[in-house]
Structure formats: structure tokens, C-alpha cells
């Protein structure tokens, strides 16, 4: 018996979304011809494109207006423990799967020239990572979720540890331990839920499970340990700047655009609906941490001398909007948090790619080593300006949408919440545009900057794709939010229903 969910699709699109990239990754590894790096690259690109292509029917055939799980696949996996291969998406996970598969294509393409050593392994790591991440977003079984959740750490760990910067080992271990410690507690929570639910690992069944407040709080702490590290929330964020600075460009892109979203998603999928009373009980705590992330981290970002660290801190600050929005328990807040996740996926990916463009040419991430890049790279400067503005939350770009929704929702909850959240308008603009001023504007800073070449065709289209995404979400977010409404309403119904 697999539970109440029945398979609802002809083609197993979700399985394809997970296993096509993984299979492509294994294939790249298996062919393993480092002498013929070009073949590995092309194969990886084809794999990534195929992985993206199989997610498109998910959007095309997605039924708007229902909170039911769609494209459900249910197969027995370990019958002895009632563990099932249970997949499904709703309006919350679907956009994240699309985002992930889209970013994977960009990342593979971004590593085209820079990565010259162990090309096959590099590409394979990203493809496998992409499939596993889709698994996280699609899994509806606790064990399955946990397996994907842990497994996706490994490729990223390798990406940082092998292709990273000089201090990569410290960063990789820090990243691994931080996230592992958190997820071990989550495993305990999952097993506990299994035992008291009478032997079910179905996440959706757990939504109906009555739990005392004390139990809920303990479980909250366990899930919090896993997801707050991923988001990351203050004060468990310090692994992120280190991981970003040491990671290769592609690693940073995936880390910021995708991995962090797993944390936010975890809160939505597990914490809010399974532990509604604890969520309400601890919402003040969560909101306080989110606001600290927004304000405090905004100040920290201001003084970073390293571009990647600056963008990493900016990510933490922007992700504060996600957790803030979620714990306001209003439709606009939750949807704002979701939109913020998608937008941050585009914008942070774009900013890290921009730093990558500079790093590939000058091998420095220090702001002080630049100055006047616009003189030698005008096209690039135009792209960077657009992304900087998106990061500052300018209307018309995706960065505005989520921030605006969350600020509106917070003012509605309490004026001072909105007041503190809205400081990102000043701080975000301050750190982003000050960096832009020092790196791009001004007279040519030195001979290295004078020798810079503008974007190659590949870089141009890579950033161009993100420009389109950022503007599309900014000018017409309705298609994105329409997908979410029903699921968010359902989520809020669960949150509103006490389990005591």
C-alpha cells in the first residue's frame, strides 16, 4: 500500500526530471575521456538541455487552481519500513524544479572554457547534483527526501573541494559539517514522525498527524537545524561566504541559486504544515532571525572587500526575506517568499556569473583590484548594471516583486516589521551600487583593467538569458504567482489548523 496518492501521469515526468540529468552525468563520467574534453562538454550540455526539456511539460500540463499533488508517481521501495518512491509537485515545488533545471544549463555552459582539468568529472558533478536537487523538490516520502537531501551535498562538496580556490579544503569541510550536523537532527525527526504516525513516511500524511505542542517544538528544533543552515539564517550563515569565495563560478551559481532554496522549501514542505502550532509559537523567533539577517547582514555586506563575499552576504540578506515572508502566515507573505526564492535564483546566479567573467580574466575577486571596467567592457557593464539594479530591488526587475510583496505583508502584520524589512531598499542599493561604482565606474584602474576584453559570444548569451528571466519575472509575474495560489492557500489552511 502506497498511501492515498495515485499515479496521475502517463509519462513519469518527475522521474525523468530527476534521472535524465543523473544518467547524463553518469554517462559523462563513464565515457571519461579527459583527453577529449570537448566531447564531455557537449555531452553534458545535451544532458542539461534534455534535463530542462523534460521539466517543461510539467509547466505545460500543470493544472492551476488545485492544491493536489500533480504528476504523482508512487512505487514501493522498501516495503519492510513502508518507504516508497513517492513523487509529486504542487505550485510550490514546480517553480523550483524549473529554476533548477534552467540554471543547470547555464552552469554547464558557464564552465565551458574555464574548466580545463577533469572536465568530465566537473560536468558530471553538476548534472548529478541537478537531478538530485529535483529529487529533493519532488520527493513526498520522508526517507526519499532525506536521501536526496544528503546526496546532493556530495557533488557540491566535490565541486568546492576539487575545483575551488586556495582555501577550498577549509571551506568544503566547513560547508559539509555545517549542513551535515543539521540534517542528522532532521533524520531523527523523520524517524520519530515515522514511529508515531504508525509507520508512515508519507509527508502528506504527516500533515494530518496530531502532535502536542512540546513534541512540535522539539521537532521544530530538529527541522530548524537542517533548514536554517541551508537558507542560511543568521547566526548559522558563516559557512556560506567561505563556500562561495572558494567555490568555482559554477559552484557559486548553483549554491546561491539552488542549494539555498532547499532550506526555504524545507520550511514550507515540513515545518509549516506538520508543525503549525510550533510555527506560530516560534514565529516571533523566526521573524527576529530573519530581520537580523536582513539588517545586520546588510551592514556586513557593505564593507566586504571581496566581490564574492559581498554577493554571498547579499544572498543571506535577501534570503531573510524568504523566511520572513513564510512566518507571516499570510498569502502575500508566503507567495512573496516564494517569488523571492525564484528571483534570487536568477539574480544571484547572474551576479556570480558576472564575478566569474571578471575572475576568468584577472584572477582576482578583490574590489580594490578593479575600477573603470566599463571603459573596456561596455556590454558587460550594461549587463552588470541591470543585475545590480535587480539586486537593489528596482521595479521592473524580478528583485522587486518578492521584496515588495513581503514588505507589504509585513506592514500589514506590524508596521515596525515592515519598517525593518524595508531597510533593504537602502542597504541593498548601498552595498550593490557602491560595489558597482568601485568596480565598473571610474577611470581605468590599472593596466590589467585596460587590457580587458569585452564579453565573448558565449558569455553574452549566458547573461542575456538571465536578463530575459529577470525582466520577465519583473514585468509580468502573474504566470509565476498564478501557479502558486492554490497550493499556498492550502498550505495556509494547514498552518491555521491547530493540531493540539
Amino acid at each position, binding site marked *: 500500500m502506497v498511501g492515498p496518492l495515485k499515479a496521475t501521469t502517463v509519462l513519469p515526468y518527475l522521474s525523468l526530471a530527476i534521472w535524465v540529468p543523473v544518467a547524463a552525468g553518469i554517462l559523462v563520467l563513464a565515457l571519461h575521456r579527459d583527453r577529449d574534453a570537448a566531447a564531455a562538454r557537449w555531452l553534458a550540455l545535451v544532458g542539461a538541455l534534455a534535463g530542462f526539456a523534460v521539466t517543461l511539460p510539467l509547466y505545460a500540463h500543470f493544472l492551476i487552481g488545485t492544491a493536489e499533488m500533480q504528476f504523482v508517481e508512487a512505487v514501493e521501495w522498501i516495503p519492510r519500513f513502508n518507504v516508497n518512491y513517492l513523487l509529486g509537485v504542487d505550485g510550490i515545488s514546480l517553480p523550483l524544479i524549473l529554476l533548477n533545471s534552467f540554471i543547470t544549463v547555464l552552469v554547464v555552459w558557464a564552465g565551458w572554457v574555464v574548466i580545463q582539468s577533469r572536465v568530465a568529472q566537473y560536468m558530471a558533478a553538476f548534472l548529478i547534483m541537478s537531478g538530485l536537487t529535483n529529487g529533493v523538490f519532488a520527493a513526498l516520502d520522508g526517507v526519499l527526501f532525506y536521501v536526496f537531501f544528503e546526496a546532493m551535498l556530495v557533488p557540491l562538496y566535490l565541486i568546492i573541494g576539487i575545483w575551488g580556490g586556495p582555501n577550498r579544503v577549509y571551506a568544503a569541510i566547513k560547508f559539509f559539517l555545517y549542513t551535515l550536523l543539521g540534517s542528522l537532527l532532521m533524520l531523527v525527526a523523520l524517524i520519530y514522525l515515522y514511529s508515531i504516525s504508525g509507520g508512515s513516511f508519507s509527508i502528506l500524511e504527516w500533515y494530518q498527524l496530531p502532535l502536542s505542542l512540546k513534541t512540535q517544538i522539539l521537532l521544530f528544533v530538529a527541522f530548524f537545524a537542517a533548514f536554517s543552515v541551508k537558507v542560511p539564517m543568521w547566526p548559522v550563515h*558563516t559557512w556560506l561566504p567561505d563556500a562561495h569565495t572558494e567555490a568555482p563560478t559554477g559552484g557559486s551559481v548553483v549554491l546561491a541559486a539552488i542549494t539555498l532554496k532547499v532550506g526555504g522549501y524545507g520550511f514550507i514542505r515540513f515545518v509549516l504544515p506538520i508543525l503549525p502550532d510550533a510555527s506560530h509559537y516560534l514565529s516571533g523567533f523566526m521573524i527576529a532571525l530573519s530581520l537580523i539577517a536582513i539588517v545586520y547582514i546588510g551592514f556586513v555586506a557593505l564593507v566586504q572587500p571581496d566581490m564574492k563575499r559581498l554577493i554571498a552576504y547579499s544572498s543571506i540578506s535577501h534570503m531573510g526575506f524568504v523566511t520572513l515572508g513564510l512566518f507571516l502566515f499570510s498569502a502575500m507573505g508566503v507567495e512573496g517568499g516564494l517569488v523571492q526564492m525564484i528571483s534570487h535564483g536568477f539574480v544571484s546566479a547572474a551576479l556570480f556569473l558576472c564575478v566569474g567573467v571578471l575572475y576568468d580574466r584577472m584572477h582576482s575577486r578583490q574590489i580594490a583590484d578593479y575600477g573603470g571596467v566599463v571603459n573596456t567592457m561596455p556590454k558587460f557593464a550594461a549587463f552588470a548594471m541591470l543585475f545590480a539594479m535587480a539586486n537593489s530591488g528596482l521595479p521592473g526587475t524580478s528583485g522587486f516583486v518578492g521584496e515588495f510583496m513581503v514588505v507589504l505583508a509585513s506592514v500589514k502584520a506590524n508596521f515596525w516589521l515592515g519598517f525593518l524589512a524595508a531597510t533593504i531598499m537602502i542597504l541593498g542599493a548601498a552595498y550593490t551600487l557602491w560595489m558597482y561604482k568601485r568596480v565598473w565606474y571610474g577611470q581605468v584602474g590599472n593596466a590589467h583593467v585596460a587590457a580587458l576584453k569585452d564579453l565573448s559570444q558565449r558569455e553574452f548569451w549566458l547573461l542575456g538569458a538571465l536578463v530575459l528571466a529577470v525582466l520577465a519575472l519583473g514585468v509580468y509575474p502573474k504566470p509565476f504567482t498564478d501557479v502558486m495560489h492554490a497550493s499556498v492557500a492550502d498550505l495556509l489552511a494547514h498552518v491555521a489548523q491547530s493540531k493540539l
Partner: protein
Amino acid sequence: MTMQQIYLLIPLAPLAAAIIVGLWGPRLGRATSHRLCIAGVMVSTLASAWVLRDVLAGHDFNGDVYTWMTSGGVKFTIGFLIDPLTALMITVVSFVSLMVHIYTIGYMADDPGYTRFFSYISLFTFSMLMLVMANNFLQLFFGWEAVGLVSYLLIGFWYERPTAIYANLKAFLANRVGDFGFVLGIGLIVAYTGSLDYATVFGAAPVIAGTTINLLGDAQWSVMTAICIGLFVGAMGKSAQVPLHVWLPDSMEGPTPISALIHAATMVTAGIFMVARMSPLFELSDTALSFVTVIGATTALFMAVLGVVQNDIKRVIAYSTLSQLGYMTCALGASAYSAAIFHLMTHAFFKALLFLGAGSAIIAMHHEQDMRRMGGLKKYMPITYWTMVIGSLALAGIPPFAGFFSKDVIIEAVQLSTVPGHTYAQFAVTVGVFLTALYSFRLIFLTFHGEERFRHGPAHGDAHAQERAHEDPRESPWVVTLPLIVLAVGSLYTGWAYVGDTVFGDFFRDSIVVIEQHAGLAEMREEWHGVVPFMVHGLTGAPFWLGVAGIVAAWFFWSRRPELPDRIASALSGLYTLLINNYFVDRFNDFFFAGGFRRVGTVASEVGDRVIIDGFFVNGSARAVGATSALLRHIQTGRIYHYAFAMILSVLALLTWWSVR
């Protein structure tokens, strides 16, 4: 073509031009680029005029273009509200923009960024038009921020100049501080009305006027006051009111056409327009109106004082703009919204004229902007000179020029206002008239009369200074002088021609709401008997004579006895230092905000993140684990008898524990 399509055409024509020229400008070439942009704005101007005519015939419009998003029961839309206020604004904006586009051909002729510049100013025109045409707060905020963005790009247009890229960052951040308040105001509106649509919000306004909100301690604030002050903080950023005015003088780092378009005629008027648009809200909070009045009065007076001591020709006009925006704000505070919009319109003409005229002088001076190195330009540049004189007379409020009418109405309205702070405002706007005339004609005398100081050899020895010293200045080409003449005609004509309709007539219909308690303008309306009696009445009033006194004083100090001002300055050196440093506001901001933010950031980063979280907790626990395992390692000796001994001890200990228990 339906009217709706025409409405759409107004913002989209310049947007299309901006995109095409922005993407392919260098490939299209200069002439094609500027033709495209001018064509785009020309379409907007003609369509706006058509819409104005249609609106005057009584055809308003309020409808959505598309739904941007829905969330939490709130509908976010993009849509247009076409009423007299909008129609007037789009006409002024697109017309001034068109003049500036034409002028730019001459002014930017030698600039390598020519096509980029055209793309920016067309994009700006699009943003401003979206702002004034909005029928909801979302689109208003979009336009609001978009003009901020373009202003940022244009102030930093010459991105190699350190001062320019300092000024544009400063401008953006000062505006963002305003937008911060603006967003909170919008947030409160959505929280209390559940809508972003103007009509719905205005409809709900009387209902929420009685609601209070607990903001600080137990003090109950009227929600409407909180909303209006929030919105007005946004206006203080865009319309450069004290203390968020700091960005405007520095914005003169941008090319002169921009100073005329953005920092005189359009973007800075966004705040004024917004408050007028929100009159149904502001009318319901006397506290907010009082706040508006005091801020406006302070700006009007204190910025006018600064105008008198500036030496950079553009900065004089910039401070003048600040002061005049203060006048408009005062009018808003006095519930004389139509007077504020009327002054906005006349000011757009003569201020654009003054900036473009100053630009013309700057071209002749080979991009020298210091008036101390000009002088005597009158005989070389007659068109520039005479148009500038017209602009200055209009600014100084001398009849029958446009500024006289708009300013006189404001002064009277402030006198009749009853909100707290109106006496202070009355003093400020009256003294301001003298100062306005003083700095305006100081500029005229220093630039166009007297000794030809530009011949005094190279001041900093560059090639431009050499050219200045040896060549006679020349009048600018027709693309520069034509806009000057057109705007001069506007400065002459718009005052007496429109004051009757816009201020005293029923031009604005229900697009501006004034409640009965704020009847100042209504009283004036009853005493209105036409333009000529109004002028005659003006000639007997204090403001007119103060203006004349200002002109005479300017003549005396800067033409008759030019050595006097320096002597006064050194006699009052303390005051002079205060003024020339802009009351030390910039220093304070640099130290307290810019520096303070960085210091907080450094402490948070170095102490909070590096020492406490990373040093103590993260690496500390790693070290603790390391130290513990180093200790434990001693136990792991690998010798059987050690382990056996430990086992025996443990068994004994357990047995003891059991038996004792």
C-alpha cells in the same frame, strides 16, 4: 485609432526609441539615433496635446492595461488614469522633453556617448510618463523608481569623473531613503484598504480617516497621518526637500540637458505631482499638511540663501530649483494643490530655459561653469542673454512673466492657510522672493555683464582655458537657441494665459480634492476678477517690491560695486563658511551616515561574524572537538591490558551503583 491606443502610444513611443537606440545606437549612427528618439517624443507630445484637448472636452478615462499579479486578494495592475491633472502633466513633460531632445543635438555634439545619452533621455521620458499616467500605486512606484534609475545613469553619464560617480550614488541613495518612506506609506494603504487602485483607495479614505494605529508606546496615530507622512517622505526624496535635498546640487555633475530635463522640469516635480494626486488623502490629515508646510517652507528659504553664494552657474540654478520646489511644497501644505501644479508648470518652462541658457553659456566658455571666469557675454550671445533675462524675470516673479502669477498665488494661499506652521511658511516664502530675485540677477550680472574675466589667462592652464582667453565666444547653433526661444515664449505666455483656468477656474475638476475647512484658494477664487486686476493688485503687494528690491540689490552688488560682496563675505566669514558648505549637511551625512554605516558594517563583520560566530562558536567547537579527542586519544593506547583494566573498573563501578541504588 481609439483613445485607449493613443494613451498607450504616449509612454510606449519613447520606450521603443530608447530600446532600439540603447541596443543598436552605435550601429545606427548618431543622426538616425537622435531622429528616432526625437520622433518618439514628438509622438508623445502630439498625442498628449490631443489627450489634453479631449480631456478638456470632458472625456476622462480610468482603466487597466494588464494585471501584473494577484496575491492575497490584492490585485496589482498596470493601468492609466487620464484626467485633467494627468493630461496637463503629460503635456508639460513631453513638451519640455522634446525641447531638451532637440537641444541635446547641439550640446552633446562632441560627446562619444551621444547615442547612449539619447537612449537614456527617452527612457527617462517613458518613466516619467508612466509615473504621471498611473491609476494605481504599483505603477506609480514603478515610474517613481524608474526615474530614479535613469537619473542615476545620467548623473553618472561621464562615468570617468570621480565627482560624477560620487554624485550619482549619493542621488540614488538619498532617493532610496525617500522611497523607503514611500513604500511604508503604500504598505499602510494596502494594509488598511486592501487595494492599490487609486479610486478604491480614495473611496475608502474617509472610512479609514478615523482609524488609529499604535506606533510608538501608547501614542495613537491617525492612520491617515502615518500614510501621508510616509508618502511625503518619498516626495521629499524625489522633490529634494530638506533634509533629503543633498543630492540635487551634486546632480549638476550630469550633462546640462539633464539638469534641465530631470533636475528642474520633470523628475523633481514627481513628488509635487504625487502629493497633488493624493489630495483626497492629504486633505484628511492636518498633521501631515502641517508637516508638508514646514518642510516646504524650510526648503524654500534656506536653499534660496545658498543660491546667493554659489559660483558655479549650474549650482545657482540648482539651489534655485530646490527653493522653488519648496514653494510648491508650501502650496501643497496650504491645500492649494492647483497652485502648486500651476507653479510646477510655469517653473518647468522658465527653469528649463535657465538651465539650457546656462548650458549655452557653458558651451561658449568651452565647458567652464564658474561664473567668476565668465562676464560680459551679453554682446557675444544676444539670444542666450535675452532669453535668460526673460527666464530670470519670470523666476523673480515680475509681472507679466509666468512666475509672477504662480508665485503670487502661492504666497497668498499660504497666508490664508490655517494649518500649524503657516506663519513660519508665510515668512519664508515672502523673504524667499527677495532672495530669488537676488541670486537670479546675480547670475545675469556675473555672467553676461561686466568685465570679460574669461580672458584672464589660463586658470588651470588647460587647452580649453587657452581657447577661452584668445577666441571670442560665439552664440550657440540653432538647435540650442530654438528651444531657448520656445521656452522663453512659454515663460512669457503660460502665466497670464492659464492662471485663470488652472488655479481659479475649474480646470482640474475632481482630480484634486479640497475639503471645506481648507478654503484658502476658494476665498481667493471669489476675489478673482481677471488677469489685469490681478496684476494691478500684485503691483501693490509686498512680494512684487521685494522682487524689485532683489534685482536692484543684485545690480548694486555685482555690477555697480563688484568688490563689495567679497568684503562682506570676509567680514561675515563665519556665516559665509556655513553657507558655502551647505550648512555642513553634506559633511554630517558623510560622517554620520556614510561613515557610520561603514563603521557598523565593519564591527558587524569583524567582531560579529569573524570573532564571535566564526571564531568562538564555529571554529571554537571545532577546536573543542579537536582538544577533546586529543585527550581521549591518550586512552586509546591499543594495549589490551589497558582496555581490560578499564572494563573491570567499569563493571565494578556499575555493580556499585546498582547495589547502592
